[in-house]
Structure formats: C-alpha cells, structure tokens
C-alpha cells in the first residue's frame, strides 16, 4: 500500500476537475436559459409596441 496517497490524490484530482467542469457548464446553461427568456419577453414587448403604435395614430 506504499504511495497510496499519491494514487488517491491523482484520482481525486481527476474526478474533481471533471465534476467542476460539468458543474460550470450546468450553471452557464442555466444563466443562458434565463437570458434567452428575458430577451424573448423584451422582443415580444418590442413587437407589440410596434404593432399598436400605427393603429393609435390620428
């Protein structure tokens, strides 16, 4: 069992690096989804405003 600590350190590092990368991607996807939803609402509001405006013109 000599050097077990090095084996443990290597496997732990690899696992944590992979998990960290996956976690960062999950967070980024959540942030992008929120941003897309906000932008969709803003675009809908913009298109509604441009549709209403000519009809209300005297």
């Amino acid at each position, binding site marked *: 069992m*000599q*050097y077990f600590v090095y084996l443990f350190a290597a*496997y732990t*590092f*690899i696992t944590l690096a992979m998990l960290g990368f996956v976690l960062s991607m999950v967070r980024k996807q959540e942030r*992008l989804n929120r941003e*897309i939803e906000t*932008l969709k609402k803003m*675009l809908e509001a913009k298109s509604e405003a441009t549709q209403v405006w000519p009809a209300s013109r005297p």
Partner: protein
Amino acid sequence: MWVPTERSMGIVQRVFYWHVSVAWVSFLAFFIVFVASILYLVKKASSWDHLAYSAAHVGVLLNAIVLVSGSIWARPIWGTWWVWEPRLTTALVLFLIYTGYIMVRSYSAESQAPRYAAVVGIIGFADVPIVYFSIRWWRTIHPGPVVAGGQGSGLDPRMLLTLIISVVAFSLLLWLLLRVMVALKKSEDEIKQMQRELQS
C-alpha cells in the same frame, strides 16, 4: 482488485489507467479541433466552428488533467514533480497552444475570432504527433510505449482490458461534453442574434 498490481511501482501505477486514457482522448479532442477547423475554413458553416471551439475547451481540460496526474505519479517514482524532458515539455507546449486558441477566441474581434482560431487549431495540431512520438524519438525518463511499442513492451491482458475500458469510458465522456458544449455555444449565438434584433 481485479487488475494486478505492477511489480516495481506498486499501487501508484494504477494512475496509468486514467492518465493514459485521458491523454489519448485529449489527442482525439485536438484531432476534432483540427478537422472541424479545416471544415470551417472550407465551408464557412458556424456548426464546424462550434464543434472546434467545444473540442478545444474539453481538450485543454483533459490535457491539464494529464499534466497534473502525471506529475502526481512522477513524484514517488522519479522523486520529483516535474522534469524538463521531451514528453513532459511537448505536452506542456500542447496545453499552451490550445490555451492560446481559447485566448484568440476571447480577445479577437467577434467576426474574425473563428477564422484566427481555426488557423491556430490547425497549426497547433502539429504538436500532437510530436508529443506521441517524443518517447520514441528522444532519450527520455518517461516510460516507453506499452501498447504497440514493439519488442519488450506489452501489458498483462487484464491491464490491457482495464485500459481499453477506461479509454472507451473517457471517449464517451468526451462525446457527452462536446454535445453539451456545442449546445451552450448555440445558445450564446442565439442570445447575440436576439440582442441584435432588439437593437435594430
């Protein structure tokens, strides 16, 4: 444990199964960057750029894992964390090249970044065969090839099977990460498109 313990290095040799398979899969990731970059320059389709961008990110992560896990393995066996010998040095250069690829993507003008990065991705791939063959071309402290290394090399069948399973597992992980990364890049492009629509 099913796989036998190596005689001279003992239990720490088991780092080999992840270290070597991650190294091979990182080469595969950089090969994907190489091919996708060529196809982007030829066809100008953003889907190839998305694939190259994603593969470069995953490749850099895998390459960093190879460097660190190799260093941890080297400490008890060589008595040092790092040696400036051909395999380690060329592997570090490979890491720096593709880190450069990501920096080019980040700091170039948006319209030019994919083209500049594609050039870096293609030229940078030249280092992959140098890393692979460095242990055959030069005298090095790094162990010689154990698979397809000619006379005197080879692995116990159980060790070889464990290595193959590990390579398959990390290849599947690469495929999964690429799918997620490409989806992220598409989402980013969608956001940029919507922002342009809002400003127009």
